[in-house]
């Protein structure tokens, strides 16, 4: 139930093992497809980990995350293409720009509650989508070919990449993108853990649980809502930029509804508002998706069944379920050690009074 427990040692240990395994994987000679899918997993998990701050922790039903992702991706690509500067540089600029973009969305949502936030943010994403795919004006001519400002329906391309092709060669360059996106995921996850476990995370959750009571205990809704929008945007924008650099193209399809639902289901499957939720959820959903690739006719059904199963059987998500198993196991171990004098986890106050 609570994320505050003295579990940080466990989390650090688990995280370290996970990072070590992920660093080692490319040396074990996996297929290019596998590396590519893991890279995509890192990118989606990064986005979901930040979305989870807004949607799960702060309880603001924003669907703007992919719009911020697209903003980051397009900003990285467009600056790379039109200004001719390195993607490494435009990536950081795009990340900062995403913060401003997200704050504007947060401001627009300030007076809205619940599903109305979802409606407005979805509308913003759809407007972006439409603006891009209806962009037919020639921004510049490439020979006899007309190129649109946003890339239009074809997508924005030819802005280059992160230079791993030159550095590592055509065969190995995927590993560069792999480690870059892994690094991004690690940073984003550490960031989200720090937020969730700090007073700021409690402020977000408090305002989610009861905004009126929250403001009466000194929490400014204005400040903390804008703050959560701002904080969740940076790594999302960076993820968009890394995505663009990895595929060397970015198009309006990142704003499509199916992709949005794909990512939302990661959040739900992992466990809303839970620190480990995004990584677990992204892994489970991508695995399920992968497993059903050969059964196209039942793919959507199986995918829906997974979500139904999680919502019904594990309303706290996979992370919540694991947390319960962990607490149970911990109690068993303490009991085995004959720790009758030791209070069980989360009950430290027991027995202090006679």
């Amino acid at each position, binding site marked *: *139930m*609570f994320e505050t427990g003295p579990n940080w040692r466990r989390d650090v240990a688990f995280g370290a093992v996970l990072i070590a395994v992920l660093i080692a994987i490319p040396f074990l000679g996996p297929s290019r497809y596998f590396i590519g899918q893991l890279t995509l997993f890192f990118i989606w998990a990064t986005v979901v980990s930040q979305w989870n701050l807004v949607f799960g922790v702060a309880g603001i039903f924003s669907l703007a995350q992919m719009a911020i992702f697209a903003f980051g991706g397009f900003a990285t690509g467009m600056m790379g293409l039109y200004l001719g500067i390195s993607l490494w540089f435009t990536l950081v600029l795009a990340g900062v720009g995403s913060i401003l973009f997200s704050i504007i969305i947060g401001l627009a949502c300030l007076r809205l509650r619940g599903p109305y936030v979802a409606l407005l943010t979805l509308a913003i994403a759809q407007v972006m989508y439409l603006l891009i795919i209806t962009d037919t004006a020639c921004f510049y001519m490439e020979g006899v070919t007309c190129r649109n400002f946003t890339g239009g329906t074809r997508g924005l391309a030819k802005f280059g990449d992160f230079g791993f092709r030159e550095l590592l060669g055509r065969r190995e360059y995927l590993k560069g993108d792999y480690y870059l996106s892994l690094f991004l995921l690690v940073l984003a996850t550490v960031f989200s853990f720090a937020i969730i476990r*700090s007073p700021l995370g409690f*402020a977000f959750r408090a305002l989610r649980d009861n905004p*009126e*009571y929250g403001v*009466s205990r*000194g929490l400014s809704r204005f400040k903390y809502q804008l703050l959560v929008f701002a904080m969740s945007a940076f790594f999302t924008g960076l993820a968009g930029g890394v995505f663009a650099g990895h595929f060397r193209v970015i198009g309006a399809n990142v704003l499509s509804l199916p992709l949005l639902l794909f990512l939302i289901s990661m959040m739900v499957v992992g466990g809303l508002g839970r620190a480990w939720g995004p990584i677990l959820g992204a892994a489970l959903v991508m695995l399920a998706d992968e497993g059903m690739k050969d059964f196209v006719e039942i793919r959507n059904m199986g995918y829906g069944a997974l979500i139904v199963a999680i919502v019904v059987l594990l309303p706290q998500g996979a992370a919540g379920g694991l947390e319960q198993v962990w607490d149970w196991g911990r109690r068993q171990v303490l009991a085995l050690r004959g720790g009758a004098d030791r209070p069980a986890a989360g*009950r430290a106050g027991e027995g202090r*009074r006679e």
Partner: protein
Amino acid sequence: MERTASEPLLTCQGVDKYFGALAAVRDMTFDVFPGEALGIGGPNGAVKTTLFDVISGLNPATAGSITFDGRTITRATPDRTCQLGMARTFQLNAGFDTLSARENTLIAAYFGRHNRLVPGMRFDRETQRLADEAMEFVGLDEVAHEATQTLPVYHRKLLMVAGALATQPKMLLMDEPVGGLNPQEIDDVMALVRRLKERGLTIMLIEHVMRFLVRLSDRVLIMHHGEKIFEGSASGLVYDKTVVDVYLGEGSSRRLRHLLEDQPSSDEGASGAP
């Protein structure tokens, strides 16, 4: 910063609250002095709670001025009034449901005392100490790690008081602190309010239960349809014709009179009173 007893802590001057054309609060003028307990009574719909909303900033006044501790807070937001030292409890069981009881109080202690421009990475020692002290003061230290949503009504009422105390207030606004409680719990809350007064806290409380109101308040203010119809000592209340006509009725004013005459200062056997 020390203020003399003659200087009011809270002053409401001609406060109006309109919802569109509807006047909810009309021309409220009163003072609350440091260390006193001002009880607010009145029939349903007398907009007592709205008055609290207006004072605490949740629903700011349309006209008039409110001064608290030497500052004008007429337009201040509720988070600001909290940080200035005005803590409030609610009629309904407000709380952060998915968090533990202690976490509820920690948040109040951390964010409610002063404005956190950039919140830190953890709850500092001082915050933890204040939160634990507040939990112990109201007697919730044993359930500190329980989830708030699983607590019984009585504990949730106490948790609101703990959260309010953790913000280190100068003044406490209590909205029906004993609503929905059984007689034993009512007596326990009465004892708690007395201990709060002993700590030197200024208290404003809304209450329907008259025996609770008159015996805890140094002064009483009765509202009706958003207007003040009485302000004065509790003993004067039962002789005031308007109050008896509008609110108390003959029967209960007689019973209250007996209650006040029988036990002018102590409260032994109070649970048997009507």
